[in-house]
């Protein structure tokens, strides 16, 4: 074979091998690092895996936030108005976390139906409802009007602390 053509062949073979490796590794990394989203209904129905990082979302139930007086531990309940999910967290809650607002929680289920949260995300705008939460609420049979003013004005700027 002509040396130039040979070099070209090697370049192409190298490219194909490298990209195959890259894609393989990428898919592998993707598979082990994807967090699925679940609503409280799905979790109560046992659809969510235990001891695997997942995302859950809903409204923080009024009157459910309980702080430990000594430490930074906090417990609260998120709800889609059908089922409730108890969340335990240790640390500082985001600025926009409050009762009656939508939040997304990242964490693992402990087998007793509690979610041990490693991260709590609240959107950085009073009017904004996390889209996953809005969809989950709708799936649970609630129209946006039912959960108040929060979702009325979804057109204004949304912001996340992620």
């Amino acid at each position, binding site marked *: 074979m002509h*040396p*130039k053509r040979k*070099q*070209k062949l090697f*370049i192409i073979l*190298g*490219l194909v091998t*490298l*990209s195959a490796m*890259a894609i393989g*590794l*990428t898919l592998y*990394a*993707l598979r*082990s*690092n*994807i*967090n*699925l*989203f679940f609503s409280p209904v799905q979790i109560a129905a046992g659809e969510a895996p235990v001891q695997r*990082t997942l*995302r859950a979302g809903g409204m923080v139930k009024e009157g459910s936030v309980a*702080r430990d*007086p*000594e*430490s*930074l531990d906090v417990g609260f309940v998120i709800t889609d108005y059908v089922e409730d999910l108890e969340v335990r967290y*240790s*640390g*500082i*809650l985001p*600025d*926009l976390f409050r009762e009656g607002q939508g939040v997304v929680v990242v964490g693992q289920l402990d087998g007793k139906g509690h979610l041990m949260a490693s991260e709590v995300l609240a*959107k*950085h*705008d*009073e009017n*904004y409802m*996390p*889209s*996953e939460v809005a*969809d989950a609420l709708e799936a649970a049979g609630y129209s946006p009007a039912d959960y108040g003013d929060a979702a009325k004005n*979804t*057109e*204004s*700027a*949304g*912001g*996340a*602390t*992620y």
Partner: protein
Amino acid sequence: MLIEMIPELGHFALVLALLMALVQAVVPLAGAATRRPLWMAFARPMAAGQLFFLLVAYACLTASYLLDDFSVANVANNSNSLLPWYYKASAVWGNHEGSVLLWSLMLGAWGFAASCFSRDLPSDMLARVLGVMGLVSAGFLTFVLVTSNPFTRLLPTPPQDGADLNPLLQDFGLIIHPPMLYMGYVGFSVVFAFAIAALLGGRLDAAWTRWARPWTNVAWAFLTVGIALGSWWAYYELGWGGWWFWDPVENASLLPWLAGTALIHSLAVTEKRGSFKSWTVLLAITTFSLSLLGTFLVRSGVLTSVHAFANDPSRGMFILALLGITVGASLFVFALRAPRVSHAVSFSWLSRDALLLVNNILLVIMTVTVLLGTLYPLVLDAMDLGKISVGPPYFNALFVPLTVILCVFMGLGPLSRWKAMPGREMARRLALSGALALTIGLLAPLVYGGEWNLWVSLGLVAALWVVLPLVRDLIDKSRRSGSPVAALKRLSPAYWGMVLGHLGLAVTIVGVTVVSNYNVERNVRLAVGESASVAGYDFTLTELGQQRGPNYMADTATIAVSRGGEERLFTMHPEKRLYIARGMPMTQVALRPGLLRDLYVAMGEELGDGSWALRIQYKPFVRWLWLGALLMAAGGLVAVVDRRYRRRVKARSGQSSGDQGAAHLSAPREASA
């Protein structure tokens, strides 16, 4: 009377700018195709006129903000009479409509700059370049006028006061971050226009790359600074102490940066050696397409984040259509024209050509992995296959090893020669640097952290492996003739640019490595008089108070910091603000910056019995992240002043790439990448 008409004047100017962009797009391109000098001559005045009217439109919008004209919907939604004037002026681009206008203004400015600094260009090339830029500009101005008009009025009953600017955006970082980022995004349109013009003219030789290189460098430098500013802003404004979240919006800016970095290197090969021609054109198209994709992701509302202003699906569709047309049309032209000009130049496996090829492959793989992780959740969601999120572990798992491999080749690159290099010479020149990098890198964690840490060593070895061969090379070069200073002075700016750029990346890598591994973070519960110890510093809460700002109320804390039981070193003042107009709380971080460490205190929440949750962090070397980015950007700019970019090129002299490349290889100059 005139003041009341300002928004209409702006609107009118915007329409005129669109018309000029259309003329700039159609007439010069047609002129270049039919060889009519008069038609081609339309390009330059149209670029100037377009910029003028865009400036008028932009000034009108800014005036509406400064004059509190709440009858303009854009002003009413994003400003407030209590807002300080500098935030009113920067609020112009703190929303969807205004930021797209800024995008268009910058596109006009780049087009005008290209028309000014390219007087040596053959007239048909210039006509094509400006024509392509006119096309892009026309697309965007249509987008602004049809879907995102910033001058829409709220008449006849305008609100009494505005809804205020999102408090997160009321910050110095916001004043400069978006313009820098946009300058980078939009700047890649110039190299894109050059590439398309070269394809259209059938002159896909080394000449276009020499014209395009300075533009690419400048755009890349702006983008680098823009990304660094965004990271810095997230660090001190979001109150979490993180500096990179692998958020889709951040990824959207990283994608064109990675592709642009590959482009800079591939342009070098094409200019010097005449090889990789089609590849370089393809990269130019890719880079600008990724800039457009970034704009689409951020502006379309498919992502929800602090940047996603627009939730109107028609806007998303419009940008997606623009993106589709740009990519489709460019690839179509590429497919028609590119095969004609390919001709291979051979090189050995150990040569600068080969190493730059590896650099390109690695950077493209990095781009693809980031792209995949960013788009995968969106595609799944769009196809209704479930809601997922791809977390930082994915990106870290792929990005860190790829960066290390990239560094391995970066150590070899600057020392290698074009075409071929004996392996023994390479080994001889690198042996000492390699040994030093390994020794220092392996020992440093022991000295600094007290115990050995694989990741720290890996990062440090990689960074040193990039830097030490460069130092060695500089020493060798300074010894070559006469006094060292004179010898160093003779090195070309392009060479110095490369040195700075690589050095910058190494500095950033050191910053990332150290702060990721030695970062100390504690969330504590403190009442007045209590203290907490973090990384050897004692933080004592001495006072809680309240304060009133121009448009917010704030809870404040005073924290005395001491070390090792001695008296107080300094005090820090974090705040928790409540912005009145939106009722939105915000954390104002107290920072004690330093070259070797930052101390970071943020107020969390009040815990009832008078105590507060505080987030206290010790962040070693965090400044190196952004310092490195600044060095990289400086490198990009230094390389631009290289004399060869200003050398007069006779029209048509670049017909065959062979003689161009040869002329440049024989030029008496130090190696430059």
